């Protein structure tokens, strides 16, 4: 009996979180959001999908005749499932650090902006120039003009309760 109550509470709470996040981007208060904001919403709820995974989700959410909008009634069940199944889990800090270390082939302990740019705009799911610029502005140490990735990672993963 107690268990059932808890499960329901969790679902309700989860759905309220989803609803809140959705509302933030629902500019006209009519329970729709621009499809281009879906990625932001999903990620802000604590998920780390890749771009490809995101595209799949969006494809599921779009209307048969794409209007450019996603309705809440469709978003809610999909997102609830994602959260309850804990899909797209966060990336642990040490794994992230390793990733940077892999890029740092010469084991310098830091990365040059050009190096990082090359990797992130050419490999994997490439960054746009804008994304790259934004990341650099946060990551580059202004005095030494390099990316001290160890510091960067710990700074970025320090977080509020999500």
């Amino acid at each position: 009996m107690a268990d059932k109550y808890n499960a329901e509470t969790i679902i309700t709470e989860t759905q309220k979180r989803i609803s809140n996040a959705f509302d933030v981007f629902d500019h006209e208060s009519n329970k729709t959001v621009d499809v281009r904001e879906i990625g932001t919403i999903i990620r802000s709820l604590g998920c780390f999908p890749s771009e490809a995974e995101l595209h799949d989700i969006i494809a599921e959410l779009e209307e048969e005749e794409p209007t450019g909008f996603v309705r809440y009634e469709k978003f809610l069940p999909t997102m609830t499932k994602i959260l309850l199944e804990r899909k797209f889990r966060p990336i642990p800090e040490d794994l992230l650090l390793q990733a940077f270390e892999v890029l740092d082939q010469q084991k310098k302990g830091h990365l040059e902006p050009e190096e990082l740019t090359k990797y992130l705009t050419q490999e994997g799911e490439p960054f746009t120039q804008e994304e790259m610029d934004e990341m650099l502005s946060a990551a580059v140490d202004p005095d030494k003009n390099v990316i001290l990735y160890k510091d960067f990672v710990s700074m970025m993963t320090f977080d509020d309760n999500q």
Partner: protein
Amino acid sequence: MRAALLIQRWYRQYAARLEMRRRCSWNIFQSIEYSGQQDHIKLYNFFGYLMDHFTSASSQRNLVSQMFRESDAFQDVEWEKQFCYKDIEVPDAYAGPHLSFPLTISNVTELVDAFKNKQKLHARYVLQLLGKTWTLLRLMPNISHVCTCKHKEITICAETPYVFNGDFVDRGKESMEILLVLFAFLLLYPHDVHLNRGNHEDHIVNLRYGFTKEVLGKYQVHGKMILKLLQKIFSCLPLATVIDQKFVSALRPLKRREASARPKEAALDPDGDDDDDFSTGRRRVQSLTHGTPVRPRQELPRHSVHSGSGRTGRSVDEELRERRRLAGLSLSSDSELYSAEVQETDADEWKQIVDVLWSDPMSQNGCVPNEVRGGGCYWGPDVTQEVLDRHKLKLLIRSHECKQEGYEFCHNGRVLTIFSASNYYDVGSNRGAYIRLGPDLIPHFKHVGRTERSALQALRLQLFAHKSALIREFQEYDPQCTGLISLKHWTVAVEKVLRLSLPWRVLRAQLVTSSSRDGMLNYHDWFNQLSVIQPNTEIANASLLETLYKHHSNLESIFRMIDTDHSGLISFEEFHQTWKLLSSHLQTDISDKAIADLAESIDFNKDGSIDINEFMEAFRLRTGSVHVQDVTDGVNGRRSSAEFAAAPVNAVVKSVFDRLDVVQIVFNDADQVTQTLLLMLQMLKTEGSGQ
């Protein structure tokens, strides 16, 4: 490559979280602003209430009639005598700019430079400048026309006319200087500079939003005269500018009236410029501004084919007089003549204006009531198409919705929302934008941290101001009075009490900084952690205090209205009366003794009158976090005296002007306007479009 993929995936999530936080700050400000608008509605409800309920008991009647006193008995000619500057002497010690008329370019340059150096123009010159402006504006039609054509038979139009779109004041602390510079340019280039009236060019609104205070503070001897003259000037400002007969903003009356769902709540212009809504019961709640043309709340830069609306201003005035007469207040003699005809023609126009005031575009077709703002509607692309086509117009340009990027097209590019004040809520909250009839230009600007901090501070103040209601609500969930509630219940309670439509769950993380284990929060402690500094006062009456905090800005407006001679002081008696009326209207219970205590506690001079400024300061809430630059203005905190990051913006302004084309719409932030105007001056000089 897996490593790259991982980093990208992680970074994108980080960026999304940031974006969410930015959006939330944004929503907070908007929400508080909208609720501030609703506050203004409350203010006007209060006035309506007064009109209905004042008794013939002499003291109350005097107070009410005093507030609504028609002081405009003079003719213009008489006023001119009043405004005469000639007897005002300029002392030798005065180091500010001297003006001579007719103005020359070097005069105006000197003026702008002086303001940049934080100097003040002497009252004599102020009155002189304003007087000339008034004279000029009285001759102008209500709607000015601009043509950008290069071939005209008789005269060659300037290639770069400038249109300034209203709402020049009430933001920042240099509204007076901005106005003076704008008027100086107007006098210098009357055919090339066009000023439109905004809803803040209205003395009632100025009472609330701070311009009145600014003027009185800067010009202690002549401030009242200056304000009166400004009132005259405002009522003469053109409503709008039509450009090339193609780019306008059209009213959209018909669709809206059909869709009107709730006449009572719909459309009370909170800034009270004018209006009415559909139910005649509200008619008396008019602006108390004399001769205010029916000015949209939106800054409609170019206007309407609705040329008949020329003289609606006067009729608001007459309507008001008629109402007062009916209510038995003091009257002026010619009211009866006009009132009858007036009522017919205006109802329609007012309704239309009201719709325009409140409406925002939406993406779906149709027309539905705008519940967020409490008035007007949301209209869809189909309405736009119908209306623009009907009037053979190309583009509707409107504003009043602050856009993060400063501008936004919608409805297939036929509607453009332009919002010119960057950093509207706080540094980095949004970008300002210019329009030229062509591609738009956007400055790039991002400062997530500070905006968010301001937004959260503003929110904390709101929470604190509702403390007793919140505690009552919390206690519903804590019947055993343990002092603890769950986070879930906290969220529900806050949502219910504050009635700000915000994503509380998302914000909770930043507002509740220390919940204990197992998700239970000690709510008394939590109030302390909001770090809101309460004024140092012996007033123990909690409900009185909370009324003060909650209705802070409205209170100030009311007091300033009572203070008709702008002395900055009101008597004990007036203070007392106001509170009695207010508490009866709000249906709170405030005893005579509590009011007397309150009055005494703030009569710092002990001379039987209360200084309004001192009063408002004494009961202002502040947050304790020390960010010297972020000073919010009471619970409806919006005016931040944060330092605008002048450097990047000025660079942008310059780059904008490098690509200057036809028409400019300029925003109204002090530094930016000054810079902009300086550059404009240079442009006008070099392009040789002088008079």
